[in-house]
């Protein structure tokens, strides 16, 4: 089976090479090779993933294969090797399944784009990079994949590069990611200098054996987390993800919701022996995660761009995952990663279908009443929204409940409290999105309205296929809570760290604390949904529900209570972009200006001064070169005399 592993990333790579080289010539059929390569990769990945899950591969006893010695340097070694354990298996399922569905969806979505072949080539390159990241068995290879997905993200955000905003968003994403990647690179260097190996399993063994001092563990963990913060767009590096929505919607679904942004979560989970040995860093992880969750959720309240709402929602859910990792609920984080991957992918693809239907309009204020015009999209997105809101028994309920329960039971009450609030906020803003888009009266441009149509089958089928796991995934692998299938799968990966943490948790009890928490959360969620329903309109004639939308109520309430600043803050994204602009563009620009001045006046001045002195000296000395032969002869004579006299003075004496 190990020989199948390299096939998983190599198939998309082959697809990328062929599509990249020949795509332009293939014209309308340029998607064929790319899509089939990913489908084949998916099949292989399923075999590998379920083999890994069924055998319970954990740390140190997974299936590994080393292809060749990648960088054989004196004393330094990095191998081109892959490693599959249960965690990799889970990621493989998410990445390849969603990747495949997004590829199929893109056939319809990008059908009329002249750059279609380029798009599919990039998508395949992304699949290769992401799978390389997930499968790599050493840190350097992970880093290679890490940078490659960053590159693909850059290429795909800026896919419509003639649009200035797209080009700038791509640059922003790339630059912000560099900040985090710097941390990751430093972490790799620290690991190499301290442990002398980059192979992950070897590093984990050494760390568990106490091969790293507690200070160094904390430093390495913090640096790794720094990389994760960049890639997973956590506070304070979260600013790039909303702008990344400038890319085509399938890209948003695949890269910026379901896979690449999960890389940070994967990295922290993968390095659980390191993080487990640094409890202080775990608190930082939890704090950053939960802060990002509530920050992003509050911004999502007031955004009007449908994709931006989803982007902030993604930030918020990623924050949940980090909070979960931070409190030690490793499995819950991966659970949420998987379920979120599916329902957020679904929501993004659904929003793409909506945007497609209303003629490339993304502003929700110019939508409304679309429910009956694009029913398949509506139903699937409704499923996704219910799932992300956390209504039982959909996928989001189980995963979110485990996170909150884990935080509560492991003593992180503040994490639980914030997470609880965020759960209600999530339900509210998701149904605000549904209301503004699908319910109430139509605000669509009358000219466009006539052409509203349901998307083609290649686009709706992936929606339906993604709706299935959004509904059933939780029941399938998450039930019964805290001892479901996923827990059995992932136990080999996390059990050592959990045991070393020394935290004993009470078993899950339906009629005890866990059940109580679930009921409280569910009540809050349902309340929030109903509130959003009332405010943004409900129109379900089948069951006789109808209410007029009153979107301005939000503003009225906040203004009346003197809380207007909250509303303004939220719609201004809490001024983070302005802060960055001030810090790095304005002040940074001034600093750069000062440095430039210094460079120009002092450094260039010195260099030019030397040049000027030389030139002037040359101009002065030029007079010596008269061009008259007898002047030179006199020089020779004088030199001769000087030498003779010198000889007398020194030698004869």
């Amino acid at each position: 089976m190990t020989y199948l592993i390299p096939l998983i990333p190599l198939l998309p790579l082959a697809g990328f090479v062929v599509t990249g080289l020949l795509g332009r010539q293939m014209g309308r059929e340029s998607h064929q090779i790319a899509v089939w390569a990913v489908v084949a990769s998916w099949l292989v990945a399923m075999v590998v993933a379920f083999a890994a899950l069924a055998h319970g591969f954990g740390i140190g006893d997974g299936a590994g294969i080393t292809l060749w010695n990648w960088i054989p340097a004196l004393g330094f070694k990095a191998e081109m090797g892959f490693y599959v354990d249960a965690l990799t298996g889970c990621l493989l399922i998410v990445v390849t399944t969603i990747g495949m569905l997004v590829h199929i969806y893109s056939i319809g979505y990008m059908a009329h784009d002249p750059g279609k072949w380029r798009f599919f080539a990039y998508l395949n390159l992304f699949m290769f990079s992401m799978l390389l990241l997930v499968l790599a068995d050493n840190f350097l290879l992970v880093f290679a994949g890490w940078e490659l997905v960053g590159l693909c993200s850059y290429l795909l955000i800026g896919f419509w590069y003639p649009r200035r905003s797209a080009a700038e968003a791509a640059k922003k994403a790339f630059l912000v990611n560099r900040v985090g990647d710097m941390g990751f690179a430093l972490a790799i260097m620290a690991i190499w200098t301290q442990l002398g190996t980059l192979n992950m399993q070897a590093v984990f063994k050494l760390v568990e054996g106490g091969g790293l001092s507690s200070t160094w563990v904390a430093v390495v963990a913090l640096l790794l987390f720094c990389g994760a913060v960049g890639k997973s767009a956590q506070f304070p590096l979260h600013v790039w993800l909303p702008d990344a929505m400038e890319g085509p919607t399938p890209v948003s679904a695949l890269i910026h919701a379901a896979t690449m942004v999960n890389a940070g979560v994967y990295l922290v989970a993968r390095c659980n022996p390191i993080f487990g040995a640094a409890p202080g860093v775990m608190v930082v992880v939890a704090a950053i995660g939960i802060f990002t969750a509530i920050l992003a959720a509050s911004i999502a309240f007031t955004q009007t761009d449908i994709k931006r709402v989803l982007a902030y929602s993604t930030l918020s859910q990623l924050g949940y995952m980090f909070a979960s990792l931070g409190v030690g609920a490793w499995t819950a984080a991966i659970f949420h990663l998987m379920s979120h991957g599916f329902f957020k992918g679904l929501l993004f693809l659904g929003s793409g279908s909506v945007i497609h239907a209303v003629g490339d309009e993304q502003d929700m204020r110019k939508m409304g009443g679309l429910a009956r015009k694009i029913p398949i999209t509506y139903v699937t997105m409704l499923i996704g929204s219910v799932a992300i809101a956390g209504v039982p028994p959909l996928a989001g309920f189980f995963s979110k409940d485990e996170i909150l329960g884990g935080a509560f039971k492991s003593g992180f009450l503040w994490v639980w409290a914030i997470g609880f609030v965020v759960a209600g906020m999530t339900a509210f803003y998701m149904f605000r999105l549904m209301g503004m888009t699908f319910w109430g009266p139509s605000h669509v441009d009358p000219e466009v309205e006539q052409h509203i149509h349901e998307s083609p089958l290649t686009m709706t089928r992936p929606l339906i296929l993604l709706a299935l796991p959004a509904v059933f995934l939780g029941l399938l692998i998450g039930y019964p809570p805290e001892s479901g299938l996923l827990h059995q799968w992932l136990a080999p990966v996390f059990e050592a760290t959990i045991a070393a943490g020394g935290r004993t948790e009470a078993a899950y009890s339906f009629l005890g604390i866990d059940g109580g928490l679930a009921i409280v959360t569910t009540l809050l969620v349902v309340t929030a949904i109903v509130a959003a329903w009332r405010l943004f309109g409900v129109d379900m004639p089948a069951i006789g529900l109808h209410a007029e939308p009153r979107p301005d109520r939000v503003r009225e309430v906040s203004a009346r209570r003197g809380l207007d600043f909250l509303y303004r803050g939220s719609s201004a994204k809490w001024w983070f972009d302005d802060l960055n602009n001030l810090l790095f563009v304005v002040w940074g620009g001034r600093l750069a200006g000062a440095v430039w001045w210094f460079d120009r006046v002092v450094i260039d001045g010195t260099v030019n001064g030397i040049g000027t002195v030389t030139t002037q000296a040359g101009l002065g000395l030029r007079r010596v070169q008269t061009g008259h032969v007898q002047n030179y002869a006199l020089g020779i004579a004088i030199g001769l005399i000087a030498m003779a006299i010198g000889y007398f003075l020194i030698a004869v004496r």
Partner: protein
Amino acid sequence: MSGSLDSYLVLSGLLFAIGTFGFLARRNAISMLMSIELMINAVNLTVVAFGAFVPALNTHAAVIALLVIAVAAAEATIGLALVMAIYRNRKTPLVDEYDSMSQ
């Protein structure tokens, strides 16, 4: 006086100094060449004087002096031909007007 090597060498030195002065001071190219001939003669006088007073150098000095005279003849031929060529181009025998190398 005539039986002392020193007097011939001092004579040679004075002749050489006169030749040097002429080479450095005269403006005319042919005058410079004549000064060179004086200096060569001074050197040749030295060679012959050593041959006359140092037994081991006796015949060798005479041979060397003859060779020097031959080479000097060749030098004079080429030097004067060069002066002629330059004179035809620049229409002047004055060395300080050959100034195409100066700014």
